[in-house]
């Protein structure tokens, strides 16, 4: 039997067929629809839906190659460069983050790279944080009006700035953390689970420690994720790795599973108050699932470290947009002129290009040695 008819290609192919039929149908139906006065034409609705899907699909593919979560790209971009209400953006951002995590859950669980015990343990705390964060976001949106919108963009801009710097510096991460002392609580939880490490072709067992402390950190991470509608893999991975001594690869796999599980708690306050608008959110969801699966199947072996520079450049530009928009909404400054936006964009493009050229040269040198 051809591999195209076996999992995971089978489900990918089924989804592709349904998607193509659905979009072809929408296009044909949209062309024949009569536009009501003041309404949008059927073709324009089709174009928006297709555009959202393609953008989400692209974000998912780039996220797989660059190792940066989709939510971190979606939410700042939408908040910085569109006028869509921040609550709708953050709610849809949570959908983007959680579905890229959910679709990666199956393969990670099957292969044993992720550890369900660690994930459930952390989700017990993460869920409380994410739920409280979502409630806080709704409170701010309902009570603080335009100032709240400004505050959210400003705060997200600052987070994104520190995140971009963190991605450049690399942070303190250890591939195989050394554990000198296992505390009683962690020992009692029996969380470690051996897995087969492909790179060294042997089974790895890993002791863990400080499980109690990780709970506090994870509640904070959940709060951030729920409030800003960001995936929080960038915080979950170091929290597990540095505090609990989870090996880096396992921590990264766990973070996807944990986001999918924990955001099932954080997303419902948004759904129950109407911040997730079904026809708007659906193409984003589909793009993440299909892009995440295809990306993992086709692109995971593509060595394209330079994509990371592109993403970091994008984060700096989104950060500029968020900070200026936030300050404008708070009445601190006026509209940023087009030429200044262009100048910032051009400067970032030049820096990113220089970094990519240097990276490619360094790779070529290493390959030649």
């Amino acid at each position, binding site marked *: 039997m051809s591999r195209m008819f076996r999992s995971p290609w089978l489900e990918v192919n089924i989804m592709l067929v349904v998607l193509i039929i659905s979009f072809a149908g929408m296009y044909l139906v949209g062309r024949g629809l009569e536009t009501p006065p003041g309404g949008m034409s059927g073709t324009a609705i089709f174009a928006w839906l297709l555009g959202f899907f393609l953008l989400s699909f692209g974000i998912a593919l780039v996220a797989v190659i660059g190792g940066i979560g989709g939510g971190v790209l979606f939410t700042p971009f939408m908040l910085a460069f569109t006028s869509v209400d921040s609550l709708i953006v953050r709610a849809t951002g949570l959908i983007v983050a959680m579905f890229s995590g959910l679709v990666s859950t199956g393969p990670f669980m099957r292969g044993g790279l992720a550890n369900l015990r660690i994930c459930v343990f952390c989700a017990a705390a993460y869920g409380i944080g994410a739920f409280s964060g979502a409630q806080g976001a709704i409170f701010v949106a309902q009570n603080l009006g335009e100032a709240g919108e400004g505050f959210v963009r400003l705060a997200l801009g600052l987070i994104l700035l520190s995140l971009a710097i963190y991605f450049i510096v690399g942070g303190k991460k250890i591939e195989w953390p050394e554990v000198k002392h296992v505390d009683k609580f962690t020992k009692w939880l029996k969380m470690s689970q051996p897995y087969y490490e492909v790179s060294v072709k042997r089974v790895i067992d890993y002791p863990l420690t400080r499980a109690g402390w990780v709970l506090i950190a994870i509640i904070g991470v959940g709060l951030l994720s729920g409030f800003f509608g960001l995936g929080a893999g960038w915080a979950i991975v170091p929290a597990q790795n540095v505090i609990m001594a989870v090996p880096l690869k396992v921590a990264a796999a766990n973070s996807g599973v944990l986001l999918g599980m924990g955001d099932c708690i954080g997303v419902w306050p948004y759904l129950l108050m109407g911040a997730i608008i079904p026809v708007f959110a659906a193409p984003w969801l*589909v793009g993440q699932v299909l892009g995440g699966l295809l990306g993992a199947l086709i692109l995971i072996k593509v060595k394209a470290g330079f994509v990371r520079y592109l993403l970091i450049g994008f984060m700096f530009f989104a950060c500029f947009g968020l900070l200026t928009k936030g300050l404008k909404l708070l009445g601190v400054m006026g509209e940023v002129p087009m030429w200044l936006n262009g100048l910032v964009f051009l400067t970032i493009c030049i820096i990113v290009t220089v970094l990519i050229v240097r990276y490619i040269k360094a790779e070529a040198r290493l390959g030649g040695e």
Partner: protein
Amino acid sequence: MSAGTRPIMQLSQRVYGEIVYWGTILAAIICMIGPFISMKNPDKNVMNPFYLFAAIFEGKDTATIWQEVAGGFPGGHFYLDKFFYGDGFTQFGLAMGCSVAAWALIPAAFIYLFKEKNPTYTILCLWVTLLIILSMVGIVSSH
């Protein structure tokens, strides 16, 4: 088990992974079909699709959008009454995907209890499931 033999993953872990994976794919397929139904029958929608995107891109808040395009927000579980509506069906797909972890954690909890004899994780699985269900039904809410 030698260092070179791949360990077999625990049943609880495999069951959780499979349910979440297939549930997510089903939710995605529903969300592919839903918008088509919306456009095929524009009158069979809670939110009028002709006015929806304009309202979103004008930067209106959620309450205003629902009021203008649907005559008010019918509640997060409106798909129960409007299952065959375009946006009702899409909302069902979203709700299914957003609760898939709960449906996967319940069998995992029972496997931890009866097969793997590890009640600590049964309690943790049920705790997370409870949080999802409480969040779903909207019992715990600050507003």
